[in-house]
């Protein structure tokens, strides 16, 4: 319970502050880093076009942003049962099929994180009171469940794309 309260406080701080705040993990054995990037097409000197990723430059409505969470086991023991939970950022809509994560089961929530299920089974109540399959833009959370163990010094990466509304 104590940990839970700590976590709630930390989240509230983020809520109020908006910008980066150092939030201490309970034992610091796993570090998580979240980054946001956009893709731009750059034409090189040789005329070849390539996609480059950079921090969001032209972040106007309609821009697709790639959010990546990297996690690293900085402790000296192997970790298991890793679950990563990422709310879809406010004012953005999840891009269908964009969630990625090696060796992960990916589930979604459309009810603020109360329940999670696979995208095709996710339901929302429409204005007519009937349940419909949730549209990607209605997803509120993504949860990755890492299949396997993360040895000391190893890292993993999960992420998704969302479009600014």
């Amino acid at each position, binding site marked *: 319970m104590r*940990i*839970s309260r700590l*976590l*709630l406080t*930390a*989240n*509230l701080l*983020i*809520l109020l502050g*908006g*910008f*980066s*705040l*150092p*939030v201490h*993990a*309970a*034992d*610091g*054995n*796993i570090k*998580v*880093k*979240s980054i*946001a990037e956009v893709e731009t097409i750059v034409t090189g000197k040789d005329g070849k076009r390539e996609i480059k990723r950079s*921090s*969001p*430059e*032209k*972040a*106007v*409505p*309609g821009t697709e942003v790639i*959010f990546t*969470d990297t*996690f690293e086991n900085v402790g000296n023991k*192997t*970790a*298991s*049962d*890793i*679950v*990563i*939970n*990422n*709310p*879809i*950022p*406010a*004012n*953005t809509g999840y891009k269908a099929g964009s969630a990625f994560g090696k060796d992960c089961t990916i589930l979604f*929530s459309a009810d*603020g*994180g109360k329940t999670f299920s696979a995208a095709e089974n996710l339901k929302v109540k429409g204005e007519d009171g009937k349940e419909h399959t949730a549209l990607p833009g209605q997803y*509120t*959370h993504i949860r990755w*469940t890492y299949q396997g163990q*993360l040895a000391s010094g190893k890292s993993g990466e999960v992420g998704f794309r969302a479009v*600014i*509304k």
Partner: protein
Amino acid sequence: MISNHPKLNFRTCLTSLCGGLLLIAPQIGWAVGTPAGTTISNNATLTYVMVAGLPPTATSNTVSFLVDKKVNLIVAEVSGSATSVSSGQTGAVTTFSVTNLGNDLQGFNLTAALASGNPATGGTAPFTTNNFSATGLSVFADANNNGIYEPLIDTATSISSLASGVSRKVFIVGNIPATALNGQQSVVSLMATVVAPTTMAALVETAGANTAGVDIIFADSAGVATGDITHDAKHSAYAAYLAGGVNLTLNKSIASVLDPKGTAILMPGAVMTYQIVATLSGLGTATNLVITDPLPVNTTYVSGSIVVNSIAKTDAADADNAQFIAATQTISVSPGNVAAPASIVITFRATIN
């Protein structure tokens, strides 16, 4: 696998609740996209098991960036057809709409212009033929956005502020030369330029790399007017005046007075000759034209006095297309279909009681 640890689930719920708050709060007032200056933040929470006991939690940094100011607009002609006018008409009105497609409050400068030549490129039918030039073009914003030009109300020549996603009607008002022929068109364009609201200061697109603040990004498409390219904070559209309508003006006067003494003094017993001149200008045909005139009060109609274009008419409702309707004390002349230009001169007499 997912619900291995009930406590883990409980924490997940708490995190989710907070995330939910983050998600809902800034949604108020959405129009065309997220408002400029909004912060978009992301953070992830991770739980794991390493040693026996409570599963620890790791929370990522919160990565944030600001939503930039997207400048976008669209100008469109409202009716989709040319505005019918008659040659010589003044104050002919064409109607446009200007829509703020950006994500912030903006002002709009408005410019009316004549299309040069036949705007075959960029123009869509019926705005592709340009045969004559309307004169004295001016532009007015529709203050109450009712789509009707009201000269006393719609006086502003620009839109000082328009919220994201909102449209405003705009009028071009011009005069039609008397030389415009039936079927000829004058194509005009309205160009709107996005400026700062209220101050109407010009906007400059943020150049080069991203800045920490809110950048200005032009996202408009090219318009029809000369020089209206993409991403210039401008948009434009055509409308057209189509000559061919018939304009009818009626002028009534007292042509002569004959009093009982043989002079021209307005007194009881004096007989007045009224003259009504109906002038049809422009081009085309006025169909089923009927001109009626109630007799002035305190006068008595002189029987058999109706004359139309120098031809005497009877008072009865018959084939001569003119009559005096006693029940309503009204003169009625029905010339039927009349091709413009034409004028019809009607005279009749009445005695002052």
